[in-house]
Every structure is written in C-alpha cells, then in structure tokens.
C-alpha cells in the first residue's frame, strides 16, 4: 500500500517525440486513478514510467514517499497487467501465477497458499494445469490480473486491460475489477482510451492530451464541469454538441439559440450542450430547431442526429471526423429523446435545454467560462 507521486515528469523519446510534458500527479494511497485520453496522449508512457520500464527525461517519481527514479522495476513492488496480457506461454496457469513469488524467494508453502487464494478470488481453480494457449480471452485476462495481484503489490498498474475482450465480457470484467479494488484497496493506476471505463471505474480521472494533464478530478465533476473544450469533447458519450457563438454583455447567441448568462466577457465563445441535456422544447427555455436526419433507437431512449443553424466547432478530441457531413451553414447536433417522443428522419423538431446546463468556453483558449 502506497501513494504515488509524479513531479514535473517529462519524457522525450529519441527523435524528439515529447510523450510527457511536465506531468505532475498525486495519487493517494488506495485510490483508483484512471489516465484517459486519445491514443498517443502519453498515458501509457506515464504508466511505464511508474513501472520503471522507461526512465523519465526529467522529473521525479516516488512510490510510498520514496523517490524511485533509479530503482529497477523488480524493486518497486508494483505489478502490471499488460494490454496483451503477456502470460508466459510455456508455463501453466499455476506457474504463471506463482512466478513472481518464486522469483522473490517466497517459501514454497506460502506460494501455494497465496496462489490458491487468488485462484479462488478469480475462480481460476479449474484452469490451474492449463497453458495460456488453452484459455479463452476472458480467462487469460483473469490470469493476468491474478498474476499481478498474487504478489500483493504496493501499486497495481493496468494498461488497457479490457480492450481485447468482447463487449459483454468487458462489462463483466469492469464490474469485477471494481469489486476487487473495493475488497483489496490497492492503489491502482489504470490506462484506457475508453471514457466509459474511466467514468465507471475511477475514483478520479486524469484527462490527457499531447503529454499534458488537462483536467484531474472525480468523474462526475469532470463530466459536469469540464475545464476546457478538449475535455468537454472527450468525456461523455455521445460527445457534447459544440456550436460557435458570440457573447455580448450577458447575452449569448449561437445560431437560433439565445440565452443570458451573467458575467460573460464579450467575444467569440463556444456553446456546449450535452445530448442528454437536450429534450423537447418547453416554454421559457432556450431552444433551437433540429432537422432530424438519423434516429438510433436504443430501447428506452433514442439517439437523434440532425443539424441546426449555426457553425460547428471541433474540440480536438474527435478521433474520427464527423460521420454526418453537414453543410457549412449548419452544425451537427445529437440529442437523446425518450422512445415515446422519438421523431422520424426528415422531421423538424424544436429542442430545448435548461440554461444552467449550457457550457461555455472561450473560443481562443478553449478554457471554460464560469
């Protein structure tokens, strides 16, 4: 059990790629911290630096109050689960689980006890004599977790551990991971690009981009109060709708949408509205006309895609270009409707939003205006 701290850690790879740019993090003992961001944002690099697999170019990393910059991975008392599991192919599950303990000269009886214990927690009992090639993806994943947990490490590092599982298994393992963390309380650093995993699992999340931490906080706070345009566009699924607008005095206008917000400095702004905040218009609320071109029913609710008058804004967090090609004078917008009010493609509907659920960002800096 230990806290982890990164102080102004920078990592530059040969060739000049700046993977981490002055990253500072404080992870208290027992916390489940998730580093989330698009690929290439430096999250895996940060994890590898904590593990000791790579060395930082500058900055300080400490585990349990001790600076570990010069300490080899084996002496850091950490455990890591790799994206591809990295199980030893020539060893049975039992030997895979016991390898770390054996390397640390744990008495044989102790190894047996702890391997048995972890196998029971992860229900691996029947698989002990099998080799990795004879296991399914989910079973390999559990063995990989078991191999990490059996050593009772100070810090538990996971690098996209669920990304190779199918959707159903991923949801199951996500819950299993959370339960394990609640039970064992080991400080955990978890890397993912999947913001649903980040939202559901983390005590705190760190949204990263281009080697920097853009916002750190509990998932609910990052979701409801994104610090900047990038975080706003990255966290939340479907992504927040972003429209270009203008603030004048306390009045903000973006296309048809108009509302007042006290204390807004004048100038170009970005108006952000989450799809789940948009609903059928009602009197007195700011509203805009949505021309529906696609409806995705999800059972209880339906995702309604369409366009509104105005100009769209890219947040930089989009991994793919907008699928719906909107004409320049119109901006794509997604709203979530209940199945009962669901419109049909081609309809024009008025959607409204509560004024206090509209996010505002400075167009030039991307910073949230509060």
């Amino acid at each position: 059990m230990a806290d982890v701290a990164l102080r102004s850690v920078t990592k530059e790879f040969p060739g000049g790629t700046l993977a981490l740019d002055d990253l500072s993090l404080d992870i208290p003992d027992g916390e489940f911290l998730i580093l989330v961001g698009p690929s290439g944002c430096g999250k895996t690099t940060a994890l590898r630096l904590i593990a000791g697999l790579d060395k930082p170019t500058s900055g300080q990393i400490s585990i349990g109050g001790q600076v570990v910059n010069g300490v080899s991975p084996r002496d850091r008392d950490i455990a890591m689960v790799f994206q591809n599991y990295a199980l030893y192919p020539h060893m049975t599950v039992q030997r895979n689980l016991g390898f770390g303990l054996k390397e640390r000269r744990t008495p044989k009886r102790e190894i047996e006890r702890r391997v048995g214990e972890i196998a029971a927690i992860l229900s691996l009992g029947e698989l002990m004599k099998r080799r990795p090639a004879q296991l399914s993806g989910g079973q390999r994943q559990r063995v990989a977790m078991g191999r990490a947990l059996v050593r009772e490490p100070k810090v538990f590092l996971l690098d996209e551990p669920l990304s190779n599982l199918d959707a159903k298994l991923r949801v199951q393992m996500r819950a299993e991971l959370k339960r394990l963390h609640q039970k064992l309380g080991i400080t955990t650093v978890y890397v993912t690009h999947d913001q649903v995993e980040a939202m559901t699992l983390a005590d705190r999340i760190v949204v990263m981009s281009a080697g920097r931490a853009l916002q750190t906080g509990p998932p609910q706070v990052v979701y409801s109060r994104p610090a900047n345009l990038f975080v706003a566009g990255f966290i939340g699924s479907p992504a927040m709708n972003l429209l270009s607008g203008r603030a004048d005095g306390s009045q903000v206008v973006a296309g048809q949408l108009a509302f007042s917000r006290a204390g807004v400095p004048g100038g170009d702004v970005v108006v952000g509205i989450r799809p789940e905040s948009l609903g059928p218009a009602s009197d007195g609320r700011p509203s805009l006309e949505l021309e529906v071109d696609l409806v995705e029913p999800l059972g209880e609710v339906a995702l309604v895609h369409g366009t509104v008058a105005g100009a769209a804004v890219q947040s930089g967090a989009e991994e793919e270009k907008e699928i719906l090609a909107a004409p320049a004078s119109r901006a794509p917008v997604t709203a979530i409707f209940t199945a009962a009010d669901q419109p049909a493609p081609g309809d024009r509907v008025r959607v409204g939003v509560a004024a206090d659920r509209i996010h505002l960002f400075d167009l030039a800096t991307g910073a949230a205006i509060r």
Partner: protein
Amino acid sequence: MTGQTTAASRGAASRRAGERDRGQFLFSRWHLILIPVAAAMLIPMIWMLVTSVETLNETRHFPPDLLPHTVRLRNYSDVLLHAPFARWFVNTVIVTVVSVAGNLLFCSLAGYAFARIKFFGREVVFVAILATLMIPFQVVMIPTFIIVKDLGMINTLGALIVPNLAGAFGIFLLRQFFRTLPVELEEAARIDGASRLGVLFKIILPLSGPALATLAVITFLWTWNDFLWPLITISSADNMTLQLGLTTFQGTHQTSTNLLMAANVMSVLPVLLLFFLAQRFFIRGIASTGLKG
C-alpha cells in the same frame, strides 16, 4: 442459401477425401522427381554399407555390387581392434558435445544482448561480428593456429573446442529469433522480479526451442564432420577425431577400403540418429503462445 452451402461443403469434403486417397495409394507428380533424387542420395550410403561387409578383393569389383555376396562383420571388429577407433569416437563426442553446449550458452548470451540490451556501439559491433561470416576459414586458419599454439593447446582436444565455443552464425541466428519474441513477456518478468539473466533463462530460452535446436544441429554437424582444423592441430593418434582417424585407413600404397567403410558407417550413425530426432523437433515448432491474437 443453406442448401447451397451444405452442397458446397459436401463437395469440398469429398474433394478432400479424394485428395487423401490419392496421397495414400497413388503417386503425386512430385514423386516422379523425389524418388530418383532420393535414390541418387541413397546409393552412396548403400554402397558404403555393402562395402563395409565385403572382403578387400570384393571391394575392387566395378561396377560395384549393391548386394553383398558375403557378410563379413569381422571388418567392424577389425576396425575396433586395429585402430583406436573407440578413442576417436570418444574424442569426437567430447569435442562435439562441449562445442554444442558452448555455442548454445555463449550465443544465447551474446544474441540476447544484441537483441534487447541497449549499449553504446551495439549496431557497429554486431555488424562487425556479422562481417566475419564472410571471411573464409582458410584466411583465419593460421592466425587461429598461432593463438591456439600460444595458449599451449596444440595437439590437445582444447585446440578443437576453444575456437568453436561461440560463432557469428549462432549469435546472428539467436538474435534474430529473440527479436521476434514479444517484449511484454520480458517486461512482465522484470516486474515479477526476474533479473536480466533470469529473463533469459526462464522466459526467453524456454520459448526459443526451435532456434536452439537449429543451432545445436548445425554446430553438431559442423563439429562432427570437421576435418581441416583437426588435421593441422592434432598430430598424435590418441587425440584424433573420427574424421581425422578415418584417413589413417588410407595408406600411400594400400587402402583397406572395406575397413575404411566399416569405420565410416560407425561414424555416420550418430549423425543420422540426430537427424531423425531433430526432424521431429523442428516440425513441432512453437505450439503455444500466451498472447492474444
């Protein structure tokens, strides 16, 4: 749709069955080439076997008989009695086993360093080692001889072993193979507490069976059959290897062909045996992988 699929798969199944039948009971076209080539390879072996059980006079027939008139197994006991054949055999086994073991160990260590450890000048040194593969043995023969002589090992088995404990080919072969293994396995082992050597011996080498077997077989063949180097470094009969000893059956005035062939049969047997054992190993390959995909 479903009907078509089943009909198609039935068709495929019967075609496959047909191929299997042809493979078992009839010749494939390849056999027209393979059988004559195999025969051409086998005839010298048979000739050697037959000659080894003939009398000296019978060996002088031409064209040679491929079926022996007599079976004179005394040739074999004569070889064992009149020449220190057992001694040569033991010498060859010692030299070969130590050379193979040395190559496996030292080439693994060097190959791993070149594959995974970053150090200053790594690529330059590696290319320099590779370049030695292009230098013919005859060029380095005399310098090597002088070094071995300075080490005081001329006319000892050491002269045959020490220069062959590691080789550029083995280092290259193993480096290439080690590079194909996923780095994550090593990283996982390092986090689990293994040292560099621990990673090599407990993770890398157990997964490198095919490459190690290849290196072992090649080193074995090379060392077992080497003639030139033993010829220039070994002078006393006691320290000869099989290949060198066999030449003592060839006199200036008379060659006991039948005895020479009996000795030859005995020296070829271990090589044939190894080939059949190793062949099975090559085919097995890497059966399992712990990685997804």
